[in-house]
């Protein structure tokens, strides 16, 4: 059992004496005997730190992570390079261990971070109002719907099938509580079908959800599609991949009322899906309907500049059942990671990274769709992810081991079948700055030659430390590091 509790026997005796009781049990007398557990918890006894470390390290060995084998998985979360400075800052006790800044006089660090984060998100999305972050992308979609319903007094929600399946599912789950109906609009040639969208919107429509780039990686013409919404008095709500906003026209300039998204690509690890954060930006008119924390600038009694949580009357701890959202604990530390990453990329670097993604992705798309047995699912413009059709069943294509009876490993690309039965012959390939041209060529090679191919492709480790041999896709089929 770990030594996190300082109370020695002597301490306990002294405290009990002060309280005037003989044993801690007396304090639990208020729990009726009938419902007392009356036995030890049926869990292992505590382990020493080194044992816990070993146990979890050996569990982790069973995961095929992007450090070991280059991952082309995306679908909203991406293996970007998180600069070391992010960990250096987010691991400081001063950021890691406090709670929500209820006492602003001793929370200026956290509050200023929120303020700077809000500024960055507002710059990225081109919308004037940003909160300090929500849980993650999909639940931010639900928050957006809640805002739209109270802003419009309507109950209809329309979502393109280009919106992330998790966001649509999450919307559907929450719609039951909100009393909303969700309608979906199909895709054609990788893009939201304009006619169908127009037809789906009427004067009961509270909000229209689009995503850019959409789930198939395509860049949508948000401005054009958005008019269908705004012309009918519905709010235009756009989900965006923040990493593409150095390149793509920001939602704020496309008429969006609300822009939200999954923040993971900004300074957050993959972490098998969380914790990351969701961002949420809106037009000025929605400021008092915003969900979540918002930091504002002010001054102290001596006139010093300072920051506080502001517009709190929106929030559950004040407004209770009338709150604009029920969120309390959010994702402050993850938002800090994003802020540091964005500061590190900077004004120029953020654009350059976007350009890098567009160009490498174009190369990957050309290379892979050029393989025989593969073709593009659509040829809409893309930024950093694209969809590929395969003649052979996807399950078979991505299965990497020579021996098909073995359960894995799989080529880390995203099969579309589960979310889109209509595309069950296709998969997504995502690119980040961590995926070198060599990685892409190797992916092409393995897709092409599958099980047969891997043998030919063994390298000595190469000076560029790129993913070949040793810890490459191919290496992984023979057991990773040696």
């Amino acid at each position, binding site marked *: 059992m770990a030594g*996190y*509790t300082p*109370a020695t026997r002597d301490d306990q005796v002294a*405290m009990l004496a002060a309280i005037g009781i003989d044993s801690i049990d007396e304090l*639990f007398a208020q729990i009726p005997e009938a419902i007392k*557990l009356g036995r030890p918890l049926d869990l*292992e006894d505590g382990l020493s730190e080194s044992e*816990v*470390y070993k146990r979890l390290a050996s569990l982790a*060995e069973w*995961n*095929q*992570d992007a450090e*070991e084998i280059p991952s082309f998985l995306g679908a*909203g979360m991406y293996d970007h390079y998180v600069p070391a400075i992010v960990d250096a800052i987010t691991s400081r*006790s*001063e*950021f*890691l261990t*406090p709670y*929500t*800044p209820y006492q602003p*006089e*001793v929370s*200026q*660090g956290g509050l200023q971070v929120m303020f700077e984060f809000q500024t960055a998100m507002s710059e990225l999305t081109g919308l004037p109002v940003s909160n300090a972050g929500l849980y*993650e992308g999909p639940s931010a979609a639900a928050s957006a719907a809640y805002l739209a319903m109270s802003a419009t007094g309507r109950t209809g929600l329309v979502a393109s099938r280009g919106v992330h399946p*998790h966001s649509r599912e*999450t919307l559907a789950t929450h719609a039951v509580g*909100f009393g909303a109906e969700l309608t979906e609009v199909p895709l054609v040639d990788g893009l939201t079908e304009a006619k169908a969208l127009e037809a789906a919107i009427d004067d009961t429509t509270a909000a229209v959800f689009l995503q850019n780039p959409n789930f198939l990686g395509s860049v949508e013409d948000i401005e054009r599609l958005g008019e269908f919404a705004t012309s009918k008095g519905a709010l235009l709500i756009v989900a965006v991949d923040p990493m593409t906003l150095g390149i793509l026209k920001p939602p704020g300039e496309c008429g969006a009322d609300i822009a939200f998204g999954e923040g993971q690509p900004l300074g957050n690890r993959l*972490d098998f899906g*969380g914790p990351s954060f969701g961002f949420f930006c809106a037009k000025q008119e929605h400021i008092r309907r915003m969900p979540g924390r918002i*930091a*504002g600038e*002010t001054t102290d009694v001596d006139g*010093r*500049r300072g920051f*506080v949580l502001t517009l709190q*009357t929106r929030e559950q701890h004040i*407004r*209770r*059942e009338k709150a604009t959202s*029920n*969120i*309390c*604990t*959010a*994702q402050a530390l*993850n938002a*800090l990671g994003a802020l*540091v990453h*964005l*500061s*590190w990329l*900077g004004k*120029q*670097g953020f654009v350059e990274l976007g350009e890098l993604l567009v160009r490498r992705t174009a190369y990957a798309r050309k290379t892979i769709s050029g393989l025989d047995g593969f073709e593009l699912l659509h040829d809409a*413009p893309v*930024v950093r992810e694209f969809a590929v059709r395969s003649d052979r069943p996807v399950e078979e294509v991505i299965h990497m081991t020579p021996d098909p009876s073995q*359960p894995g490993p799989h080529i880390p690309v995203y099969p579309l079948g589960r979310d889109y039965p209509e595309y069950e012959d296709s998969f997504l390939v995502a690119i980040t700055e961590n995926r070198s041209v060599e990685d892409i060529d190797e992916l092409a090679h393995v897709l092409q030659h599958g099980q047969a191919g891997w043998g030919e492709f063994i390298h000595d480790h190469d000076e560029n430390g790129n993913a070949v041999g040793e810890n490459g896709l191919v290496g992984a089929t023979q057991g990773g590091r040696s």
Partner: protein
Amino acid sequence: MSDAATLTETPQQADRAVTIYEKSVPGRRAAQLPPSGVEETPIDELIPSHLLRGEPAELPEVSEPEIIRHYNRISRRNFDLDTGFYPLGSCTMKYNPRLNERVAALPGHARLHPATDPADAQGALELMYLLQESLSEICGLPTVSLQPSAGSQGELAGLLLSRAYHKDKGRNPGKVLTPDTAHGTNPASVSMAGYEVVKVATNETGGVDMDDLRSKIDDDVACLMLTNPNTLGVFDENIAEMASLVHEAGGLLYYDGANLNAIMGQARPGDMGFDIVHVNLHKSFSQPHGGGGPGAGPIAVSDRVEPYIPRPQVVMAEREGWDQFFDLDYDRPKSIGRMRGFQGNFGVFVRSYAYILSLGGDGLSEASRLAVLNANYLKHRLSEGRAGKYLPVAFDRHCMHEFVLSGAPMKKELGVKTLDLAKRLLDFGFHPPTVYFPLLVDEALMIEPVETEAKEHLDAFADAIEKILEEAESDPEIAINAPYTTPVRRLDEVGATRRPVIRQPK
């Protein structure tokens, strides 16, 4: 500071807030990116120009050394748990073991993509499965869903489960009962689940007023939502009776487990007859609070509710060639669906599971016992001297892991409000308790001294309060104008709300 004779302000106060944007200099940069390695095709040949951005976002232009200096500097403007005593009621500010950060950072965890094929993520799925099992045992309920991102999302999930449950039974009740002591997220979640909040009164011992409860139970009651021990730190001994009353009326029982730190290994919500519990891993299970997250709010449920839990669920499945295979089960026809993306806050699961392994069953039980001992000891210390006089405990009985004092006499007799006391505590190097909550206690101070705090800190805190009250007797202005030594002093919150400045002006 240049005037050496006297200190007019502290060095930190003299060091005024400057944002990273104000440190920006055109052309400065930190990041260098790898070359694309491919043709430098003009972007507008790859994406039509009308879809492209015109002006770059105004992100900071700073060098890497400036970044670390900036954030290190402002980090020191935070009070944190590793600096001192942080008895924030209802928040369970317990020590955050660094071991947990280490294991969470292992590449096998940190760089594992959430869409990895289960066959290639067995370690992660097994860990989630083991955490589900552990929480199930701790809560006394058979099934656990780890998906909810925090307590409030757990609450909403739980209430949507209640909807699904009743709908499946062909019922459509519209009300949820919550005590007036409930945390703000409870009523907010109730509304978001489309239910009506019905408040239940509190009795003179701090528990639920049973008569009021009885009078409000009818077949339109979908659910009773209870925190136990409640936000007064009181364990409601009528809990079992409440449970049967509600069940008889066809309703479900939701247990807000934010205060689980009081009862781990002592009593279990399931054994009290509850159907749904949420657990705040960032409270009882040591996930760092991060300045306001991340956390996780797993829910444990009874068999009655199990069919409806969120999708996907981690299960142990049959797979040939494997003695055990852990899988993500999407095939749950009655599920309410997703509350969020992917599988939940896995990084938090790793930390909390490491914590559970470190303490073990015995350790968790001991943690609760010592948390309750600390609370009662501090309550005792604060029943003596001036604190006893000016800050009476709201309900005078043994408390569980926390207790609530009322600053009303202090306000009346010294003109010093609970807020003033809180601010003055900052000068003494303590984080104040939760203030003005729960709402039914006038000038409330909600104090939770967790098990990882040593006796000497509790004593020092009690001494500080005594000292502050002594000061206040001679000169209340001292507290009323506090704090004096913090990086900034009292801030104009009203002004901030009237003309919100919520981003760096362009």
